[in-house]
């Protein structure tokens, strides 16, 4: 969200899913959408069947990569090098969109200088991707009438995740692939309301509707409506909060619907910090590992089926969630709990009888949501922001202004970002020679709190996935229990062979933290701009266990 907001002002994907079906080239970069966003991938598949060429950039030959006309299997963390080489090739071949670059962007010369050292040969050496594959992607992307750039956590879960995002946005700016139907830049959100959380202002630097907290007019508008004073400075993102907790500057924590004790990188360290708090309140639908550490647990309703409200998806579509079943006795809506807290804290004037009242307040304060009445949301199956009018809709894509006839109508021109490349923090060495990257499987979700109950026939429990040749070199059989160590800790896990992993690359998920806590291994090297940790790049060592392996391994989830 930070990268897009930096360039365009609004932190949302610029296209709609439907546009993927009508595009000519699709690049999935660091996204295994086939597993992580399966129904988005349906739109990609429709695009492919309509003739679009698909490129997948990913260290792993994932399920998504197997759908690609060409897969670019880069070394973990070499994304910026690859993106810069693509940019350089497009410029060198004279394929960039001169009119768009000159009229709608800024900073091209600096960008050109930044990418200039990234020849195909150098990029091949750094990324491991053959030069001809880089050239093929560059030319196809630049020559396409419409192209889509899509990414997920493979781009953002790095110590320099925001720079990664910016390096991809550069390519779309270079070719004019933004602000037109079918051409765009789309981050795929990992959770059903990540986008909505940001839209509503649950980020440290924005009020609802991406209104800047440092903007006096905006702040005063909210202060007037809420009859309070809003601190005129940015708050802290998650990583900064943990740092503050560690320094004892933050001593109390109110956690709503998060499980940081298991989802944070270097989880041992995270738990230690949470245990050091003076007071922690956890509001959740389950007694999570984090909740077990809490002083007070507030049982909440499941927002998606026991509550009325809205969520926003990856194409900025605000949709209604509705109550289908009664919650368990004692569980209450998140909003009801917050209102009750306000009452107890001396604010009896908080009066929100239902979710629609809250929503209408938002509409009165956030211009981009103003036209989204519950009635219209119902009628149209959700509405994409921005929607300032009660009568009309905006185009399905953002930033059409950049193509306006008159310079004055183009608004703030989109800046190129001459970001530097820096490899993963956790370096490979003789001691830790294997690169571990993490991700998701199709039938599981995050720490497994919700998905664990699916009686999935696909589930095999947590494994360390290894290239079979690597495993053979180490004398390891498939299903053998091994010791996996990083500079931060060790876990035991059974091995699964995956011939789609390149030699030297290993893969795990964090779906079964109760059985195998992968985040013991991951590094808490955080992006200073977004606070996201480098889940995607750890250096590990794999060793045979001394004792003969138990022939009947415990399977996670059973």
């Amino acid at each position, binding site marked *: 969200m930070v990268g897009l907001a930096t360039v365009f002002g609004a932190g949302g994907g610029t296209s709609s899913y439907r546009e993927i079906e009508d595009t000519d080239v699709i690049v999935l970069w660091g996204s295994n959408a086939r597993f992580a966003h399966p129904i988005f991938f349906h739109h990609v598949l429709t695009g492919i069947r309509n003739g679009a060429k698909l490129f997948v950039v990913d260290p792993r030959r994932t399920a998504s990569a*197997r759908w*690609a006309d060409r897969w670019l*299997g880069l070394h973990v963390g070499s994304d910026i090098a690859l993106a810069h080489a693509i940019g350089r090739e497009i410029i060198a071949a004279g394929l960039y969109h001169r009119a768009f670059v000159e009229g709608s962007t800024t900073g091209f010369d600096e960008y050109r200088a930044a990418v200039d050292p990234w020849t195909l040969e150098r990029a091949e050496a750094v990324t491991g991707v053959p030069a001809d594959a880089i050239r093929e992607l560059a030319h196809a992307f630049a020559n396409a009438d419409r192209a889509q750039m899509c990414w997920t956590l493979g781009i953002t879960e790095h110590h320099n995740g925001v720079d990664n995002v910016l390096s991809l946005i550069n390519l779309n700016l270079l070719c004019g692939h933004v602000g037109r139907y079918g051409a765009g830049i789309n981050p795929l959100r990992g959770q059903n309301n990540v986008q909505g959380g940001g839209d509503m202002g649950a980020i440290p630097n924005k009020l609802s509707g991406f209104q800047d907290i440092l903007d006096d007019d905006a702040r005063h508008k909210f202060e007037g409506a809420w009859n309070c004073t809003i601190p005129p400075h940015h708050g802290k993102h998650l990583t900064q909060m943990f740092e503050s907790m560690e320094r004892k500057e933050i001593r109390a924590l109110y956690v709503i619907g998060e499980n940081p004790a298991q989802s944070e990188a270097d989880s041992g360290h995270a738990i230690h910090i949470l245990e050091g708090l003076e007071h922690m309140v956890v509001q959740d639908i389950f007694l999570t590992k984090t909740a077990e550490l809490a002083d007070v647990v507030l049982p909440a309703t499941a927002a998606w089926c026991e509550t009325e409200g809205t969520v926003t998806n990856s194409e900025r579509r605000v949709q209604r969630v509705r109550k289908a079943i009664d919650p368990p006795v004692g569980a209450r809506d998140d909003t009801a709990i917050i209102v009750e807290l306000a009452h107890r804290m001396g604010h009896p004037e908080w009066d929100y009888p239902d979710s629609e009242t809250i929503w209408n307040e938002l509409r009165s304060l956030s211009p981009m949501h103003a036209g989204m009445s519950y009635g219209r949301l119902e009628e149209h199956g959700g509405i994409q922001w921005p929607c300032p009018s009660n009568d009309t809709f905006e185009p399905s894509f953002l930033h059409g202004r950049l193509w306006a006839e008159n310079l004055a109508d183009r608004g703030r021109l989109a800046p190129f970002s001459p970001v530097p490349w820096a490899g993963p923090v956790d370096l490979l060495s003789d001691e830790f020679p294997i690169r571990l990257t993490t991700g998701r499987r199709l039938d599981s979700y995050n720490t497994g709190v919700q998905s664990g109950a699916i009686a999935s026939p696909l589930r095999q429990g947590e494994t360390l996935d290894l290239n079979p040749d690597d495993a053979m070199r180490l004398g390891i059989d498939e299903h053998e229990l091994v010791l996996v160590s990083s500079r931060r800790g060790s876990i035991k896990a059974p091995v699964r062979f995956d011939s789609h992993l390149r030699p030297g690359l290993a893969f795990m998920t964090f779906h079964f933290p109760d059985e195998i806590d992968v985040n013991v291994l991951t590094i808490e090297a955080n992006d200073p701009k977004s606070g996201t940790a480098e889940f995607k790049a750890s250096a590990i060592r794999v060793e045979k266990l001394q004792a003969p392996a138990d022939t009947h391994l415990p399977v996670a989830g059973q």
Partner: protein
Amino acid sequence: MDLRFPDATPTLDEVQALDSVLGPSLIAEGWEREHGGAHRAEALRHRLLPSLHALQDRIGYISHGGLGELCRRLDVAPAEAYGVASFYAMFSMEQRPPRVAHVCADLACQALGAGALLDAVQAECGPPNQTGVAGAWQPSPCLGLCERGPAVLVTEAGAPAHEAVVAPAIATDVAVALRVGPRGLGAEAPVVDAVPQASSPEGRSALVLLKRVGVVDPSSIDDYRAHGGYQALRAAAAMGPSGVIREVTDSNLVGRGGAAFPAGRKWAAVAGQPVRTHYLVCNADESEPGTFKDRVIIEGDPFSLIEAMTICAFATGCEQGFVYLRGEYPRALEHLQHAIESARSRGYLGANVMDLGFAFDIEIVRGAGAYICGEETAIFNSIEGYRGEPRSKPPFPVEAGLFGKPTVVNNVETLVNVLPIMLHGGQAFASIGTPGSTGTKVFCVSGSVTTAGVYEVPYGATLRELIELAGGVPAGRTLQAVLLGGAAGSFVRADEIDFPLTLEGARAHNTTLGSGVVMLLDDTVDLPTFLRRIAAFFRDESCGQCVPCRVGTVRQEEALVRITLGQRPAAENVHDMQVLRDVGRAMRDASICGLGQTAWSAIESAIDRLGAFEGLSS
């Protein structure tokens, strides 16, 4: 594509079999493969059918490991490949002995005693489809060897696979064939034996399409040229594509496969399509029981088909031609394969045909035992590597046919008619026959007849004249009925044979010529058994796509069996006769394609014209 492949591994034989059709270059799976995706898979899909043949030919069945390896190489989902393989009768999805004798149980052979042969084979060789033996036998639908039934085709898996024909056969022949295999059997009768007219000078002088059969060496392009070959293509080149289409249109040539669609109109439609590529499909899947004329033409004069296809391609802008050849025609395959290679090596096919400045080449696609693939859209699905199910029309093939492109689809006999049209002009061609049915027609005369074979006569000869040309029923017998058009056709009575064999004559007589089957039934043929075989044939060959045909052909057969075998009160037969009529009408009205639409025709005509069950239901 993120397909899931079975764990079973292929044998070395299976790997080699696939290498022989796909080459060893296609990497299977894993991180070393950068290229993939749906577009690559789509481009490879048409190699599925040849690959299945390669596996079947090598070991005699399709194994889990073989299918899995095939799927990995072509990026075809195993379920899809299984669905395709299990569609075709020639592919066995279970382990089967390498040596198999296919004993024809179909109509023409039945009229020649196939029923008794099957009983005798069972007595001598044991039950059909045995496993764990070196060779097994199984009953087969029509093998297209009707002029010398009852016929047997013997196949043997291996590298290479071998095939041989025994016809006419007795039970001992089958036992010997299973013991010694195809390589141990004697040579097949020469193809010219199937053309009785060729045995006399006056008979031969009447031949136009069949004139070179038995005269020309089918393996020699020079001999073909010495007998007038490639003169028609020269003439076509001189008149140009539009001139060719004009002559074909003027000739009033209509399709000989049964539908009788004007060839000139079809060609003009494809020629006028701006979309490229254009394809030419030659339908050589003649599977109508009692039809074997295309086989005779291909075996006896293969270059004539190649030349005719080249002319068609020249006129319609087709860059690639396919001959979809019946899988059960080993000798036709061998002759045509050789002829195409010769033509290619001599510049009659390829990038610049005869230096005329156009490119055209021909690929043979072997069918795999499915009557439905003779349907003009099912044939596309089969070539493309899908189940041979008919498509719904529109769109018609001339707009969106093979691979979704404009396609000419004509059968063998239709195409070779183009040679005399080019040589003598459309007008001259149209002067033969009648105004409504121009040219000559090749009829396949089989069943209870003195001299079975293919007969070429001008349209307009009467059915009686044709029967007399073939010597009539064997001495001492009397004609019971004639089945015209095969299983999909209709019966006429012995007293109804004086009408002219023309499209309009057949129509006026409320019957059909179909693809030219003239099957004689004498008084020794048991009509109820014959009708049950027709019903069983359609039940076996229904593709299963639409309800009227899939279930209707079963209910039709069940009712027919009850009527013909049951000792029952008349009221029950009346009830089942109504079932037959109701089911038959729905099949005719509501089936997707011609198979279902005609599945009741012959039985209906047997009831209404021959009075087949009059005694039972009254």
